[in-house]
């Protein structure tokens, strides 16, 4: 009987340990502010500012036009972007700029608006990374408020209450208008579309599989 009591004590102690671990885990998720934020494998470890990822002094900027619902954009984000980050962004030779469009339907609009609110906390890259990993079938109505809030909560450093109050504000609207204006000016044919800017010059269209050559070509 004594052993059973001891075992019960061990179970209670184990429960205390687990609860403490859960509390630590939850509090940690709320105050990730720095580049040491652990959860995303890539973008959280790199400087983010507004819609940009990487060193502000990088000699080149790659502009990506994307729609969060676009499957090819997700394919790029999940499969090729990590390589681009590892090869060029980490060492400061390239900065990424994310210009979100919303032409595929209502889910795109709602998602883009949340992403633009996240940009005001310098977390658009973390949010969109999670969105692309969790992307659902086009216009199936999956991008509900609950879905978007869950992704926001999973994005380290993103204050969800602040995000909600920033939704649709002037800065968000400005990002939306600017992306649309740039897309019109550059005659973006679809998404994803990529443009390379070197030394403050004009954006030049670039095929992502030829980025190595384009950057090497100076």
């Amino acid at each position: 009987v004594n052993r059973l009591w001891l075992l019960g004590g061990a179970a209670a102690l184990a429960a205390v340990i687990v609860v403490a671990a859960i509390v630590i885990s939850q509090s940690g998720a709320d105050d990730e502010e720095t580049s040491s934020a652990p959860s995303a494998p890539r973008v959280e470890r790199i400087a983010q500012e507004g819609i940009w990822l990487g060193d502000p002094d990088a000699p080149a900027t790659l502009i990506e036009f994307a729609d969060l619902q676009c499957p090819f954009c997700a394919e790029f984000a999940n499969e090729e972007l990590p390589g681009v980050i590892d090869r060029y962004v980490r060492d400061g030779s390239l900065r990424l700029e994310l210009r979100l469009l919303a032409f595929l339907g209502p889910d795109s609009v709602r998602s883009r608006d949340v992403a633009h609110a996240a940009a005001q906390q310098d977390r658009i890259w973390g949010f969109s990374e999670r969105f692309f990993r969790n992307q659902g079938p086009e216009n199936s109505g999956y991008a509900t408020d609950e879905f978007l809030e869950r992704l926001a909560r999973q994005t380290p450093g993103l204050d969800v209450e602040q995000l909600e109050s920033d939704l649709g504000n002037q800065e968000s609207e400005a990002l939306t208008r600017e992306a649309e204006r740039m897309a019109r000016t550059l005659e973006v044919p679809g998404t994803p579309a990529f443009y390379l800017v070197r030394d403050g010059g004009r954006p030049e269209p670039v095929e992502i599989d030829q980025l190595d050559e384009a950057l090497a070509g100076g």
Partner: protein
Amino acid sequence: MSDRRLRIAVAVLSLAGLGVAGYLTWVHYADLDPICAGGSGGCEKVQSSDYAELAGVPVALLGLIGYGAILASLAVPGDAGRFTGALLALAGFGFSAWLTYVELFEIDAICQWCVASAVIMTALAAVTSLRFAAPRPAGSGHRRS
């Protein structure tokens, strides 16, 4: 069941757990996607979620340490070793249960490796508890306390 058999069961389960947690730890630090039957989507989603780390320490690494500690508890003689093994396995079981809940209801994805680890930890909790609580027959090869 004799203490010897229970010790062997704990050792085998701990080694299996070390294998699973070791693989997930390696995948985490190598920035790779875990190999999963039916595609790595679920595993990748779980591994890249906020729940994949606890205060900056990968959960897979915590598992690796936990399984190693349970295995090491076999080397501690008497009730101290049995109690430590049971305590660690019960804590591991509780944590695995919480992680499984998170996979199902927060992340909406299941990682087969995590499920395998949860099953192993559940079995370990049962075996180590039995080893501590149940009387052991004489001649099991270990000192009775």
